[in-house]
């Protein structure tokens, strides 16, 4: 199995967000919201940092 870097980010973010959501909050609704927040932050940070590195490398 050889996923692209971005696919690996998505898989990583999905798995970690589920665990963070369940363990860091105490009601299902808040777990869901926090899980979605973590997922968005992981993916968003990866995209932003990728662009920063791209611009630095030019």
């Amino acid at each position, binding site marked *: 199995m050889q*996923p692209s870097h971005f696919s690996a980010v998505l898989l990583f973010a999905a*798995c*970690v967000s*589920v*665990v963070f959501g*369940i363990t860091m909050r105490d009601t299902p609704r808040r777990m869901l*919201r926090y899980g979605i*927040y973590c997922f968005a932050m992981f993916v968003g940070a990866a995209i932003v940092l990728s662009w920063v590195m791209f611009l630095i490398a030019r």
Partner: protein
Amino acid sequence: MATPPNRIAPTGRAAARPHAQGGLVYLPLIAGWLVPGAGHFLLRKWGRGALLAASIMGMFVLGLAMQGKLYSNAHDILDVLGLVGDLGNGLLYFLSRALNLGADQVQVTTADYGTRFIVVAGLLNVIAAVDAHNLRTGRKPL
């Protein structure tokens, strides 16, 4: 915006912890470490346990599928940290070692991702096991 973190459990008499009375208090912690999600299953948190098990085992299997490395010995400090992370997977790690799964050396780029997936799965499993322990002792509301 992130939701606020868990409320801190009250202290004193108000903090009566019926779940901490009797039984093996550390059983969910140990079971959760050995088998991902088992700590929550013991506390009858079937949904949470299933999601945790799927996420952690999925991450571990994905790591192996990407030809990730399983740390077996520690030559330097980074190897020690990797080994500690891998050990967090509990029986998954020992079973994979017994079956000779996982690459000995990282040879392709995705194998490096896979190695990180396996280490992070172990660390997440420790967090999940501690969460089960907190549920058992009443530090986190059931």
